[in-house]
């Protein structure tokens, strides 16, 4: 107890937090611009007829052409966060708009989007705008040099959870003993200059699998330790450069590489900030002052609850029977990154009350990417089946039954039937209950 109290009373310079805020806001701003410039707002959120919403968040839907406004709000709030302008409002808007975007269609679910949502949520409750910001320039009374240390440690902890849990998820027989899915993914890159030929060797996939696992599990600790930190950071850079080169993961490597700087010392951050603000000395706090949060207790309890949930939530898969990689029940929001090469095929049959069967051409309703993601994920299969039911009922067919002929291959195994073919998908609603209409996997992937 005493130790906790003593820890909570420790202070730190605001510099790492302010720097983190600036980088995070800028990178997000660039991310949104990149997303926009590639035409993805239109092709991912406006063009599709149907969207896979999240269970419990069905009211969160793309807004048609107004989706552009949503992205505009998100981009501008990210920029304002970077500038530290109207921070409480801009960080709240950033969290809300980004999370809204993320929840519009789970086809595009990415762990790093979830990470951004969480970070922007945490930022709202921090004094990150009290130095090196427009807010602190306009209202000098909020200027701060020292803040409670736990504000900064919260971000380290969040990063640590991401890495460690991602590493834990790699401790499984497919990843470590079969080098799957890297054994499939690496030869696809064998035409890269210099390193390409290495990927023709199976041993490369094993080495990468093991190094990746060890990296994820150990990097938070190596970054925390002052002596190992420089080497750890080199590893961070190399790791993310390599993954960025090998896989289509967009801005994620850049965001992680920059975010990991938060582990560095106050001095380090002072030097960077001094350099950046050399020509703009007015942004530097004028005198030393310590920030003490007004509702310290509430904030602390909220942070504590947040992290307890973060630590526990990825383990919810334990509540479900069956193989996690197969059913994906409890798979999302758990830092399970790049663990599976999964491909599927799902052909729906709609049987109306007269017994007439229509075979559905998925392309009529879904984009290729939606179809691809749907074919391997049971909740999306169910959601699409219910959408089809609705479509048929609107055309005057009552009492339709819907069956799916599905086939899924996981990590190089020969494909097999995924959903019980004689199960009428209109008979069941989405819930957090186990989906007993998924065909058992009948194989064991050992580990986390």
């Amino acid at each position: 107890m005493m130790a906790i109290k003593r820890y909570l009373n420790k202070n730190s310079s605001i510099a790492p937090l302010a720097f983190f805020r600036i980088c995070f806001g800028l990178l997000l701003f660039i991310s949104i611009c990149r997303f926009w410039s590639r035409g993805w707002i239109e092709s991912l959120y406006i063009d599709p007829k149907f969207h896979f919403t999240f269970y419990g968040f069905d009211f969160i839907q793309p807004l048609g052409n107004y989706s552009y406004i949503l992205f505009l709000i998100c981009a501008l709030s990210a920029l304002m966060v970077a500038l530290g302008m109207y921070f409480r409002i801009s960080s709240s808007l950033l969290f809300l708009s980004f999370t809204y975007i993320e929840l519009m269609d789970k086809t595009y679910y990415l762990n790093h989007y979830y990470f951004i949502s969480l970070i922007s949520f945490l930022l709202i409750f921090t004094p990150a705008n009290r130095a090196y910001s427009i807010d602190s320039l306009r209202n000098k009374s909020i200027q701060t040099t020292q803040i409670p240390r736990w504000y900064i440690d919260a971000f380290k902890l969040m990063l640590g959870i991401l890495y460690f849990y991602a590493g834990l998820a790699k401790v499984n027989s497919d990843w470590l003993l079969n080098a799957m899915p890297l054994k499939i993914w690496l030869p696809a890159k064998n035409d890269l200059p210099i390193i390409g030929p290495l990927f023709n060797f199976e041993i490369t996939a094993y080495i990468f699998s093991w190094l990746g696992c060890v990296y994820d599990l150990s990097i938070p600790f190596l970054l925390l330790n002052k002596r190992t930190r420089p080497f750890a950071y080199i590893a961070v850079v190399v790791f993310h450069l390599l993954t960025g080169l090998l896989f289509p993961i967009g801005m994620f490597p850049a965001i992680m590489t920059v975010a990991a700087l938060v582990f560095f010392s106050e001095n380090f951050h002072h030097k960077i900030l001094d350099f950046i603000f050399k020509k703009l000395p007015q942004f530097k706090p004028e005198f030393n002052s310590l920030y003490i949060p007004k509702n310290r207790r509430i904030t602390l309890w909220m942070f504590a609850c947040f992290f307890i949930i973060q630590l526990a939530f990825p383990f919810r898969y334990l509540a479900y029977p069956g193989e996690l990689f197969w059913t994906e029940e409890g798979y999302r929001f758990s830092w399970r990154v790049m663990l599976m090469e999964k491909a599927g095929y799902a052909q729906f049959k709609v049987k109306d009350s007269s017994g007439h069967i229509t075979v559905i051409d998925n392309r009529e309703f879904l984009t290729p990417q939606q179809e691809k993601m749907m074919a391997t994920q049971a909740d999306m299969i169910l959601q699409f089946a219910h959408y089809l039911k609705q479509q048929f009922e609107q055309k005057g067919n009552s009492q339709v039954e819907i069956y799916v002929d599905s086939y899924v291959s996981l990590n190089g195994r020969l494909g097999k039937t995924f959903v019980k073919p004689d199960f009428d998908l209109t008979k069941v609603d989405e819930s957090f209950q186990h989906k007993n209409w998924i065909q058992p996997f009948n194989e064991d992937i050992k580990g986390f």
Partner: protein
Amino acid sequence: MKSAFVRLTLILFGISLLISCEKDKKTTSNEGDGKDRAVLLTRYADSLVNPAYLDFKTEFDNMKNSANAFIADPDIIKLQNLQESWENAYLNWQGTELFDFGPAEVNTLRNFFNIYPADVTGILNNISNTSANLEVPASYPQQGFPALDYLLNGVGSTDTAIVQFYKDPVDGAKRQAYLIRIIDRMDLLFTSVQNEWLGAFRDDFISKTGLDISSSTSKMVNGLVLHYERYIRSGKIGIPSGILNGGIAAPEKSESYYRKGLSKSLLLKAHNAYYDFFTGTSFNGKQAGTSLQTYLDALGAKDNASGKLLSNIIIEQMDLIKQKIVALNPDIAAQISNDPSSTNDLYNAMQTLVRLLKVDMTSAMSITITYTDNDGD
């Protein structure tokens, strides 16, 4: 605590090295062999696509010459010559339709060559309207081989009646003109696709060795999978048999509906060409070589449970399908009308193959069946 952790990871890493060395011994010494996609693409361009296109062009030109001879002075002998050369060209087309990647895909060659059933009303309208637009999607079934099928085999119940159709004092000239118009149009479209392959496209095709969505291998495999699923399984069997439409048979939707007894040969030709493509059998000389099959084998794609190579599973399924095709009535429309159980059975076998190609093969090759570019994790 930390030193224990480091020690543990070192031990795990050591084990991994041992395991992988163990596995390494079993495989051949040169693992790079067979995984070089530049070699794969070169072979497909030079030993399969280009020779097949060249051969098709010869057959097509024969048909074109017969057509010109026919309209110069229509009679039964010249009609029968034309019907025969149309049949040969149509059969030959089955061996080129599957190259639906590169120029053929960009120019949607297939849409203008083989969308059936033929739109008879549209064809008759186009005959009277000489400026009818043949570029729009609605015009697909009014041209190409299916339209020729109707024009050469379906406009009269006997060959004499068909010749009369073209000798009609009022409409004969327009009918002849439309026949030539669509053949010339096919010639133009095909020649431009072929010229691209003979020109700069070939090198471009070989140079795009990646596996991203703009790469040659990815486009080729996506095109091939779509070809079997939509144009062999659905087009030739699924739709006419009614399997894709609540079991309501529609034999009139089968390929070469007017030329009775040809549809099975067309299907068999298309299936065999697919087989040859998968196994990399060269067009000239029928020599096996670098192919999707050898590429899959080099990747070590296999069924872990039985240890059987994925390529063998695919080939066995293709063999099974071939047997079922051979057992069909020469006329698929007749087969569907008389005994739909054989076509249903064939459809199911094809469905199994589609899954193997679309899911197992693409997954093993790390090709995503997707046409959008987006981040993943």
